[in-house]
């Protein structure tokens, strides 16, 4: 008989769910078949592979998400779709009812499309799925212009998003936008409590790329703070000892 005719018996035997007769039949075949014997050995080896543990912070992150959205989830997608639809409707309604801009139809249309993109980006940033929010960040970073609402939303994402990936993407996206002093200050505050060294380093990059005369002193204070992650401290040390930065305010 061919191996395939024993496949069900062997699968049951490997899983420990075979009856004594089935087990005997499968073992009888495996005693004569080196290929099936090797498969059984591989099954055993798979069972010996260590089980990786998830990060300890995962339950806390999930609870945070539960608290952020206690009741909306059931219709969350519908609300998001409706928000986007209302946005689209408003812009096109505005296009036909508002007086034409002096620069002509093409410029007006370009302006409206840009605004529409901003609405879509803002809607995506508010989604439940981290992947969707990541799309929102990417979408935002591709926007022309500097809508303060988009900058606010990105800074809010950077400060509050439970996903490290999304926070990192937000830090990266913010690099190309000017930030109001209040937004900039809130990002500085983030350095005090974000628990991800990766995000801390991304925020340090973001803040050190700004024309902020106080940045050098603040980064030095951060470097000397007890309890700072050693990787972040090393990164700061390298950044601050860079001659270009050392001689001038961090820019």
């Amino acid at each position, binding site marked *: 008989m061919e191996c395939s005719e024993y496949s*069900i018996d062997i*699968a049951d035997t490997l899983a420990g769910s075979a009856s004594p007769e089935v087990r005997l039949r499968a073992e009888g075949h495996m005693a004569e078949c080196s290929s099936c014997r090797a498969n059984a050995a*591989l099954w*055993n080896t798979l069972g010996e592979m260590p089980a990786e543990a998830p990060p300890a912070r995962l339950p806390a992150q999930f609870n945070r998400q539960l608290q952020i959205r206690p009741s909306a989830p059931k219709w969350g997608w519908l609300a998001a779709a409706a928000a986007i639809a209302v946005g689209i409707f408003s812009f096109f309604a505005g296009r036909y009812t508002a007086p034409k801009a002096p620069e002509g139809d093409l410029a007006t249309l370009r302006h409206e499309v840009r605004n529409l993109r901003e609405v879509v980006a803002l809607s995506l940033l508010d989604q439940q799925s981290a992947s969707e929010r990541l799309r929102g960040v990417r979408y935002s970073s591709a926007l022309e212009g500097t809508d303060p609402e988009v900058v606010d939303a990105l800074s809010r994402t950077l400060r509050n998003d439970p996903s490290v990936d999304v926070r990192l993407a937000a830090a990266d996206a913010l690099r190309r936008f000017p930030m109001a002093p209040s937004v900039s200050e809130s990002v500085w505050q983030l350095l005090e409590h974000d628990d991800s060294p990766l995000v801390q380093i991304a925020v340090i990059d973001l803040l050190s790329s700004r024309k902020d005369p106080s940045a050098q002193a603040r980064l030095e204070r951060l470097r000397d703070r007890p309890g700072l992650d050693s990787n972040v401290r090393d990164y700061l040390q390298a950044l601050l000892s860079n001659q270009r930065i050392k001689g001038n305010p961090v820019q």
Partner: protein
Amino acid sequence: MLLSDTDEQLMAAVQNGDSSAMGELFNRHHAALYRYFLRMSGSAPLSEDLTQDVFLRVMRKSETWQRDARFASWMYRIAHNAFIDHTRKVKWETAMPERMDIAAPAGRQLEQDQEHALLRRALMAMPPDKRELLVLSRFQGLKYEQIGEMLGVETNTVKVRVFRALGQLREIYERMSGQPGLSVVGGRG
């Protein structure tokens, strides 16, 4: 809500709006689900993301759960769909990672750890549907019957597919290691 409640009792509580029951379900199953996604994707950050996504989907779809259905089978069906949704999204953007986000082997178990690392690579080289059969049956400890419920196929079909997937994994493993019948494959059977 009691810690001794079954998953199904907790899920019934979720249907009645008890969010603490959702937290308890997360505590019970998130580690297994994380490992499922890690075995399927090879990416730790993605596995974190998808694990949370599944439980948010569980909450959103709680109304659709039938009280006589096993919670774990239902949850894995949602996980299966979440992974498919993800792979559809990234299909044209990124290739499957060649390595897994798992600590490098060290210490006296180096040889065995290297074997395991090679096996992980071999698993990642399998087609996702076949990899999933081995992940569910071997790593997640699901019964063939549960896998059948989840994938919508007969239990015996699952057994045959697991048997074939195991053979395919062995072929890939031997090809990667460059020598058929390594100790791991031939020695402990």
